[in-house]
């Protein structure tokens, strides 16, 4: 069954979808931030096999 653009299901699920979207964006930002924090650490060294490639 095709749903119209403004079907009631969209309205009812809006908060859940918006929340999940924001959580996923947050997760991406978190992993990116962790990567930056880790590679900018003074003790950070590339694993040996990565260095050789």
């Amino acid at each position, binding site marked *: 069954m095709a749903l119209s653009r403004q079907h*009631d299901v969209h309205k009812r699920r809006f908060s859940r979808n918006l929340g999940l979207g924001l959580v996923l964006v947050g997760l991406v930002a978190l992993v990116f*931030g*962790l990567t930056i924090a880790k590679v900018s650490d003074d003790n950070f060294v590339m694993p040996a096999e990565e260095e050789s490639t």
Partner: protein
Amino acid sequence: MSDASLNTAQNSAQPYEAGFGDYFALLKPRVMTLVVFTALVGLIAAPVAVHPFVGFAAILFIAVGGGASGALNMWWDADIDAVMKRTARRPVPAGKVTGDEAFAFGMTLAGFSVVLLGLATNLFAAALLAFTIFFYVVIYTMWLKRWTPQNIVIGGAAGAFPPMIGWAAATGGVSLESVLMFALVFMWTPPHFWALALFTKMDYDNAQVPMLTVTHGRPATRRHILIYTVLLAALAIGVGFTAIGGPLYLAVAVYLNARFLKGAVDIWRRDETMAEADSYLTERRFFKASLVYLFAHFGAIAAEAILSSLGWGLW
């Protein structure tokens, strides 16, 4: 039939669609504040500096792991939650989220939190978080809670792990100080919950959960509160003389433990007739004071660590 009444009829016929807030409620946000705060203090008190962003991520993953335990607890305990006034409005017994959804949500978040904590910090901290979730869900929720009146005593360990995980996230291990922080929450939990059990009178009876109040009676529960509070006071003041303590902590601990002991003695000296006469006022006050007690002790540990890092620590 008017348009308005038609719309109302249609709306009431539609199944309830769980919103974001319903899923968030599965994480037991109020319990999470305790997890976040004690884990943060564990991280701050640790003698190893952590990058602020890594520290933030570690606390977030510990909080999500704690929330996952809450969701799995609500999945398993939906039957007893439904008959207790305090818990009847939780998402599963209220019919907002199905048990299967709560289970899937909890398992997914548990896996995510453990893996991401391991990647962000170290494997030991991740293993400790995984054990904490296992302990809360399997040992406490599935086994102890419905089996023994010591449920709160042993199960309290689950709530006591977060400061150890915070410490482990920074140091990669365990030490006397992190065990003492664990012990502080562990010893605090029984008097905190038994005070609650005294004034939420019929709830645990109706749910047939073998709380001390149900199995051993109320006078025994009052006696147990006093015994645990005495042991807790000795421990809490003793922490003041270790590396995570200090004069500020000691001052806070002496003051709060004196007040807490007085509250426990007051509870011990009362009987049910006196308690019912003032609607369990002393027990309610003791319960509220227990929340302040724990936050203030951990706040003082954090303050000592910050003072020490600024070179103002006295021991």
